[in-house]
């Protein structure tokens, strides 16, 4: 796969805040790259520099081997984190407005069908639901038949059904060999959609790779979950001393134990006469990875 974007030593500081601090990476053509990080990690600033909305203080961004130019605007489709559309115009009129701003355009009827806009095409954009609105904004990002599409937290605030519908749209776009750069707070979204993820914190990259590779590189254990009770708390205190788990995390109603030997841990629990009626075993997720790398809950 050839690289469509090359980012080298990118810096962006706002007064004393180092929003982006020496970031380098490449985006291959046709891939979906996920930028993950807590609030203030620098992912939106990074994406806005890639979109040519903000100029970097230092560093270079190359699109197909050339520095970003005005022409890049014709090749990029952008869906910002928060965008309002002009009041009192319909969905179709909004699409037509944006389409006329570009020299090369996609077939509007195809976009309308792909993004399932048919039911509210003549509705005022101010009267759309959250999910409908995000689909319209995605459709606008596609009107110029872009080679690369930037989606900045596209599903934030959507209900689970609307999020899954949105994921289906992104899968459709991926099938057309479009390159996607996605920022998200949701680990399941990154896992579902991204071929490669970059985790940022304090303006720097702290991990980079495919979701599976990153998980297998950082974890070789699973998590055992049990419903929390006073009795369990008491018994676990003595079991902790005997190395039942590589790490125990106490949540409000659950206790999680990390272990690389499930059989041994379950044996120890049974020996201590702990009820396993609520037992669940799960694999490590990107949430765990994020917590391990940054010490923060991603949605905090």
């Amino acid at each position, binding site marked *: 796969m050839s690289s469509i974007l090359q980012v080298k030593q990118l810096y962006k500081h706002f007064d004393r805040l180092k929003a982006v601090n020496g970031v380098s990476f490449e985006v291959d053509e046709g891939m979906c790259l996920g930028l993950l990080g807590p609030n203030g990690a620098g992912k939106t600033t990074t994406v806005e520099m890639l979109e040519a909305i903000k100029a970097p203080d230092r560093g270079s961004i190359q699109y197909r081997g050339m520095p970003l130019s005005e022409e890049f605007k014709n090749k990029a489709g952008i869906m910002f984190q928060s965008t309002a559309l*002009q009041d*009192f115009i319909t969905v179709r009129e909004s699409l037509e407005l944006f389409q006329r701003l570009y020299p090369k355009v996609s077939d509007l009827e195809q976009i309308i069908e792909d993004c399932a806009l048919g039911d509210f095409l003549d509705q005022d954009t101010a009267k759309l639901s959250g999910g409908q609105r995000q689909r319209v904004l995605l459709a606008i990002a596609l009107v110029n038949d872009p080679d690369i599409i930037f989606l900045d937290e596209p599903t934030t605030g959507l209900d689970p059904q609307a999020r899954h519908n949105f994921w289906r749209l992104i899968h459709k776009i991926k099938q057309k060999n479009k390159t996607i750069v996605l920022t998200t707070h949701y680990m399941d979204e990154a896992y579902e959609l991204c071929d490669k993820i970059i985790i940022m914190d304090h303006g720097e990259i702290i991990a980079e790779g495919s979701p599976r590779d990153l998980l297998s590189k950082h974890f070789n254990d699973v998590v055992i979950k049990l419903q929390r009770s006073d009795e369990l708390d008491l018994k676990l205190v003595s079991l902790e001393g005997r190395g039942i788990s590589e790490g125990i995390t106490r949540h409000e109603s659950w206790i999680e134990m990390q272990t690389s030997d499930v059989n041994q841990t379950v044996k120890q629990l049974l020996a201590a006469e702990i009820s396993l009626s609520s037992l669940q075993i799960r694999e490590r997720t990107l949430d765990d990875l994020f917590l391990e790398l940054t010490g923060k809950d991603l949605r905090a």
Partner: protein
Amino acid sequence: MRWKRFLSVLKARDREFVRDRSALAWNIIFPLLIIFGFAYAFTGDQLDQYKVGVIHQPEEDRISFYSTEYIHFIDISELEKTVAINKVKRHQLDMLLDMNKKRFWINDSSPAGYMLEKVLAGSGGENYQKQRVQGEQVRYVDWLIPGVLGMNMMFSALFGVGYVVVRYRKNGVLKRLKATPLSALEFLSAQVVSRLWLIMAITSAVFIGCYLLIGFSMVGSYLNLFLVYTLGAFSMICMGLIVAARVKSEEMAGGLLNMMSWPMMFLSGVWFSLEGLHPWVQKLALIFPLTHITQAARVIMLDGAGLLAILPNLAALLIMSIIFLLLGVLLFRWE
């Protein structure tokens, strides 16, 4: 500049304005309410005082006419004599007296002038020479309409561009447009042209509506009036661009726009003549586009002034437009 991009933004802005029925209705109803309100407020018998302009009135030579009650005597300088005679023609002055030359001017069709002539003859002015002038009465509403139309343009231009672009900046519309090939010049031109034609359409509708409903004096050329209002609206739209250039909050924009519009509303001669104000204030008023619009429109509508007479006002409006436009475009930022 790509015309396709310019026209699509223009069309979208027009649609937004025309479909916002409350704003559209207010743009038409507001000036009508003011004009009707003032037309009725200053109609009737409440102005029972006679107004007499006096040229040269040395204290020692005063005739007993001066001690007549219910007459308001106004000092007129020799330089203001022509203007004062015009006021007699328009019934804005009931009589003009020249003490040195023992002459007086009255309007043949003015009952107040007739009464004052009789009073003057019986109170020391029997040997004063009568000068007749003719002319239709100019009501306050006739005098008011040119300025009120200009004032309505001012609000529509300043808030319709300044406030709206700031709102676009705040809610992310501008940021989204910045990500497209649309240039700032194309965007701003579309905003200016959209607002200009909408203002002219609304002003024409209000003008025709007032003319049909209450009638008013329109002596001069419609073309000249159209030119004054078009250039005036353009200059005030460009003034709005300065606010639109960088401001990020609607509250700040509202404050700045009020700071611009309120002095213009009261010091541009819309509601009352600037003649009685301090000369310094009269000079200050000339920095406002609305002063030039009001002055030029008023002399066209009331006196039938031609292009030559309003040339200084047109030149001032053109210079202001260029300065405001350059500032607005140079200072403009999408975010």
